[in-house]
């Protein structure tokens, strides 16, 4: 088993005359226990940007209290390299293929990254998975097949997958997510704006309806399920062109199923004062508005 140190031993770049000079690695340590495990540290200022491009493997990002970004990379083989560089207050982490011919399994790299809480993240990951917890900065995540799990995020979140699933637990920022066949779950979210669109995936929304907030959920097929409590307050528009709409909310005016020309099965009405706006739309999927357990 060999030990790899993929970066120079130690670099230190400082601000000069108030201008951040593009810097590189602050410290690089290779642990002795794992041949393909490398650890790198980058000192950063407030609100750093961390950009991650890792085609295959798991990307796990956690917030910590240090003003530092730590990157732990675990490579399946040395057919792949991990380049981590710092430019000012931005850290770029790029996984790239170095062998001409290598199978997907050989290119797999798992990244565990620790960032300051206020970090802004840009993540590209095709297959594998993306897990982010306790990061409060804005986030942009794009994947193909990788699922995206976010916890306790409060920045502006934009997520795009092809068939990766998306789950957001206790998120509180503006959320925009789109997919073709990915399923979405919003659990205990308290966001002022949620826009979610998937073609064949299901959408489950079980969160708080904030006053003046907008929740716009849309799919072509699949199920859209929204959970509510009797004390919640929202205006509801729900329509499925070819599918069904099931509702357990006592809407005002009293709701009954309509089949309206150009609208399919549709429901309109307010629950309590109608403070939030909930818009549910499907082409031939089912929409369920159900009481919270």
């Amino acid at each position, binding site marked *: 088993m060999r030990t790899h140190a993929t970066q120079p031993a130690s670099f230190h770049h400082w601000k000069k005359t108030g201008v951040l000079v593009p810097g590189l690695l602050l410290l690089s340590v290779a642990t002795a226990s794992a041949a393909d495990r490398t650890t790198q540290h980058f000192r950063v200022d407030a609100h750093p940007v961390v950009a991650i491009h890792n*085609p*295959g493997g798991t990307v796990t990002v956690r917030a910590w209290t240090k003003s530092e970004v730590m990157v732990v990379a675990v490579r399946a083989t040395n057919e792949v390299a991990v380049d981590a560089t710092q430019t000012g207050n931005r850290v770029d982490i790029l996984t790239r*293929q170095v062998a001409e011919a290598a199978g*997907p399994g050989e*290119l797999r790299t798992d990244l565990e990254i620790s960032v300051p809480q206020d970090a802004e993240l840009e993540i590209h990951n*095709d*297959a594998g998975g993306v897990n982010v917890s306790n990061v409060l900065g804005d986030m942009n995540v794009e994947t*193909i*097949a990788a699922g995206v799990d976010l916890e306790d995020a409060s920045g502006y979140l934009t997520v795009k997958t*092809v*068939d990766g699933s998306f789950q957001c637990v206790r998120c509180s920022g503006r959320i925009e997510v789109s997919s*073709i*066949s990915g399923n979405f779950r919003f659990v205990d979210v308290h966001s002022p704006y949620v826009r979610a*669109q998937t*073609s*064949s995936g299901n959408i489950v929304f079980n969160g708080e309806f904030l006053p003046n907030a907008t929740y716009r959920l849309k799919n*072509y097929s699949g199920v859209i399920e929204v959970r509510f409590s009797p004390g919640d307050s929202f205006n509801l528009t729900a*329509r499925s*062109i*070819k599918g069904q709409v099931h509702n357990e909310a006592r809407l005002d005016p009293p709701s009954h199923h309509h089949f309206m*020309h*150009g*609208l*399919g099965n549709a429901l309109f009405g307010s629950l309590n004062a109608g403070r939030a706006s909930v818009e549910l*739309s499907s*082409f*031939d999927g089912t929409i369920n508005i159900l009481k919270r357990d």
Partner: protein
Amino acid sequence: MNTIGCNEFLDQLGDWMEGERSAEARSHLRSCTQCRLLVADLEAIEHAAPAIATGDPEPSPRVWLALREQLEKEGLIHEPRHGHSHGLADWVDGIFAMIPRPAFAAAYLAALVAVGVALSGPRTTRENDARWLDRTETSTQTLNAQLDTDEQDTFLTLKGVDPAVTASLHKDLAIVDNYIALCEKSVREDPQDETARDYLYGAYQQKADLLAQMSDRGDDGQ
């Protein structure tokens, strides 16, 4: 206040997009949903233009010519009448100048604008329905042909890509194709169904977006 019709508003659309907004045009826009949607789409394109990918090769000039041709055919761009100095054509040219013109994004943008315009066209009578359907089918045929060509080209570039990723892209492309077919059927059955038209347009956008993603993966060799 004097009001104007859709055609007069379209004459002024280029001026509108450049910030010159007459009282008549404002009045028309307040009362006309179709024109409002069109302006919203164009504003969205204008807003998105600078962010569209950089550094990619330019598409062939035929893409831009095809878009101009399509917009002219729709009657949306032509020499300005009534002494207006700026037409939509100028605005479109301005937007194109801003866009770095990545091959796929630009091609789809062009075709999507044509379909979007067709899908949002005014229809008030059955006769209009028939004309609108013809026009929409012409636009969607153009877009479909463009997408089919790009789909074939894109598949060729995906050879080095992780098979799991490729399989995922293929599967989802089939899903989107299926929705396009379903939505087209729905729109043909009921051209007045605005929601179905909205879904159809959305499905085309998804396909274009997906092909662009596939192309990116192919280019990356990942």
